[in-house]
């Protein structure tokens, strides 16, 4: 009801398949630990996720939960160590080199820190137009015209093409970053905490811009944020991530109205609110998220969960469908103590 932005899906082939999909995807990497040999970081573990065409999937969780890595797995920017990555129904898990570079125009990324995501020496025009140089045969004048169009789409004056990143504010740079991502006319835009370095007022303007672009261009967003208010304002679907796993997932309104997983509930209740009525019964989580080097057995949230039971340490709970939400928790799934597959 809040985001009524799902446009008509394009009537092209594969219209009903998700624009991007993860099937049992894992991303583990080996790190050297000083004095302790090697360790394996379980950044993303056995994740199933799909982003539908022209919609927004919000991905929330604390820092260290693997949200950014998950986006980079989906965009094939980091190695996939298990499972399949699909783009528009096509398996792209093993695509490499020039073919992968050609695929990249269909999926783009916007970063958290607007300042470090632009080459300080290049003009905004050069950065926004980089994809046009790489992927098209356009000549200089056509490129400049297209860059001006792209800047206009994000409400920046065309004259900004000649400026350098340091001459723009954070909000303006983040608009330019979106323009750069739109240059290849992607189907999917991964937005990695794009608003967290911005002011409240600027955030609101960006939310507005992103919704408008989605309505007009029919792009799908993977919107990563730890700010639940922003996720709520932008998303159709929300996935909650904890320590490399998705613990709860579903449409935005049921999830915000009646989350089932204790972690989702804690996240929701920790978010500051101006309304004193909503502050009652706040759940304050103890401690920090554990290290992904050595995740707890069974349900990974159990070490901070106030409902933790013996069974939680045994195996990861199987997904259940409750009120339209997919939940992995023994609280809502008490009758099945068998290890999930």
């Amino acid at each position, binding site marked *: *009801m*809040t*985001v009524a932005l799902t446009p008509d899906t394009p009537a092209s082939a594969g219209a009903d398949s998700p624009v991007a999909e993860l099937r049992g995807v894992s991303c583990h990497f080996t790190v050297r630990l000083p004095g302790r040999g090697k360790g394996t970081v379980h950044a993303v573990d056995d994740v199933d996720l799909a982003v539908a065409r022209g919609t927004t999937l919000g991905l929330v969780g*604390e820092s260290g939960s693997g949200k950014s890595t998950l986006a980079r797995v989906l965009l094939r*920017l980091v190695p996939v160590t298990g499972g399949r990555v699909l783009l528009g129904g096509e398996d792209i898990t093993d695509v490499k080199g*020039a073919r*992968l*570079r*050609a695929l990249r*125009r269909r*999926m*783009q*990324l916007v*970063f*958290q820190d607007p300042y*470090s*995501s*632009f*080459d300080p*020496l*290049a003009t905004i025009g050069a*950065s926004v137009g*980089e*994809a046009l140089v*790489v992927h098209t045969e356009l000549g200089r004048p056509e490129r400049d015209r297209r860059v001006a169009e792209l800047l206009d789409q994000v409400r920046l004056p065309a004259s900004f093409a000649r400026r350098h990143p*340091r*001459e*723009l*504010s954070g*909000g*303006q740079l983040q608009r330019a*970053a979106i323009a*750069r991502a739109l*240059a*290849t006319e992607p189907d999917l835009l991964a937005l990695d905490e794009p608003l967290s370095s911005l*002011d*409240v*007022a600027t*955030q*609101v303007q960006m*939310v*507005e811009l992103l919704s408008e672009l989605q309505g007009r261009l029919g792009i799908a967003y993977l919107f990563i944020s*730890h*700010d*639940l*208010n922003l996720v709520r*304002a932008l998303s159709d679907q929300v996935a909650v991530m904890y320590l490399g796993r998705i613990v709860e997932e579903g449409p935005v309104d049921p999830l915000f109205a009646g989350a089932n997983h204790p972690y989702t509930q804690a996240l929701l209740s*920790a*978010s*500051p609110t*101006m*309304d*004193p*009525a*909503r502050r009652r019964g706040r759940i*304050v*989580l*103890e401690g*920090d*998220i554990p290290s992904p080097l050595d995740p707890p057995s069974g349900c990974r949230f159990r070490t901070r969960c106030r409902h933790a039971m013996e069974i939680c340490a045994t195996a990861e709970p199987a997904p259940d469908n409750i009120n339209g939400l997919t939940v992995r928790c023994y609280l809502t799934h008490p009758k099945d103590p068998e290890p999930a597959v």
Partner: protein
Amino acid sequence: MSLTETELPGDDPQLLRRSWSDHGRLLKFLMRIGVAISLLWLVLVTVAAIFAPWIAPYDPNAQDLSNTYEGFSAAHWLGTDDLGRDVLSRLIYGSRISMQITFETVAIALVLALVIGLVAGFRGGRTDYLLMRGADAGLAFPPLVLALAVVAVLGSGVNDISLAFAIVFAPGFARFIRGQTLAIKEESFVEASTSIGTPPTRIVLSRILPNVLTGLAVGIAIALGAALLTSSGLSFLGLGPPPPAASWGSMLEEAYNTALFTHPWSLVPSGLVIALTVLAFNTLGDAMRDTVSGVTTKGRHRHTRTQRGITAVSRPAEAAWTSNGTEHEPASLLEVRGLCIEFDGEAGPVRVVDEASFDVARGQIVGLVGESGCGKTVSSLSILRLLTSPPAHIVGGSIRFDGRELLDADFNDLRRIRGREISMVFQDPLASLDPSFTIGNQLQEAMRLHEKLSRSAARARAVELLESVHIPDPARRLSAYPHQLSGGMRQRVMIAMALSSSPRLLIADEPTTALDVTIQAQIVELLRELRDEMDLAVLFVTHDLALISELSDEVAVMYAGEVVEQAPTTELFARPRHPYTAALLAASPGVRSSNGRPALLTGHVPQAGQLPTGCRFHPRCDFAEEACRSESLPLVAVSDGHLCRCRRAEELALPGVVSAGTPQIGAHAPGAS
């Protein structure tokens, strides 16, 4: 929000705390003259080298044995040498060989090093390992010995010498370039290029190389000086270009061998030229380093006497204590009245905080809120006089802490207050902690600085402090280094450190902005607990209204350097009287207007120095009238304890936060009161 914004003082405490002194400024001034002289000298030398045949008055090798060791004369400005050759002409011709070797050396070294460094840094892994071990082997030889060996193998022609030196210089350069490449590779703009689908070679050439070269400029200037010095040194040892060709080093050598005791003057011209040229290269290098690191100050400075380590105060004598009319908190711990702060800008002083007034009472949490660039951070830093002068100057008002006027305090007074009675916590705990010392070490040092404690007592107190901020297993955490702790833990350590001297006021500048909501909730709970149990007063600077509504007892809203509204928290959120406050409330993502989305607050905070006339908010205000555009207003009481700076405060009925499940913002309706 344009060109000049980054140069003007914003809310970046890092920038504001960068320190320089009077002494440094003088040095910088000399430095600029030095740059001009250096450039002039190098141009002179280069022109001499290029046009030697036309400029030199004599053939450099023309001997006149009847006229050896002649002093200055009209015919020979710098005299003649042991064979009666004109010294000036030989110097001019000598600059050809010396400068050619210098520039060739650095150019060849740079090309070699760029290839090695870029490939090693970008490829990483085994390639990196092999290339760098090779470079290490090169670095392990003493440079002069290595150069001698290479010259012995290659011969001593000008190009051979350049190549020899280049081989000596390249490994050091290569290491530096590799380091830069590794660092730049981690920047997100490189990942951005990768995600666009740009091929790796293009990324290296168009993204990494230019950035590496910018960082290398300083190194190049210094290397030019070093190359000249080394080549002269080698010539002095007799391994320069064969005689009779003149180079500066060989001239020095000839003078040294033939006339050290009989005509010592003859060593001076060549020696001086070498020294001046090396000095010129180094001066340029230093100036470039300063420019790159942004230390150079732009704009005019006023000439007030400033004291190191504290913000300069130059307020009019009569502008001391004035009550702001409402004596609702007569005995506040911190009373800020009419605070005015200016920064030196390019076109003279710019006022960034104007007549700001607020109070913090004992055991009270006061929020200072507003968008970035509103002057909240500057105000909070000025309390302990932490802004550096120049560019900052406090030009008016009063800051009283427990009755003492902080603006009259000298450095020693402030040192006793800083960290002991008033502590600060900043947004980025990692930047405020020393990475090379353990948490325990830093905590105990902070304590022992202020009170005499034995080692064991300090340790016990440190454990106690970590416990008080709910750090689990505190005794073990004492031996942890900052990087081993999570962001939330680090911020707790910072708070523990700030609490170590049992301060009465804690100034917290966006302490939770970098943290997760779950951790933020923990810190908020902690601050509340400290307020209740230790009667701690807190000034909390943030742009997060939802957070401040939960935490604080009193809120001051700042806009464009002014406090525009101030009220008890519940009152402010329920009945905002200033349109800016109402707009901020409506724009908060947690609040939804009738269309389901937060309301837009359009436009930007005006930059200091470009403020609109009249009410500073009027260009963004939905309720602005004609009078708002011309006349500014003081902060006046609109009800008990509620101050507002708006001429329409009485007549507007601005919507506040309605408590009931989801907050709702009603329709804007200017109604009669």
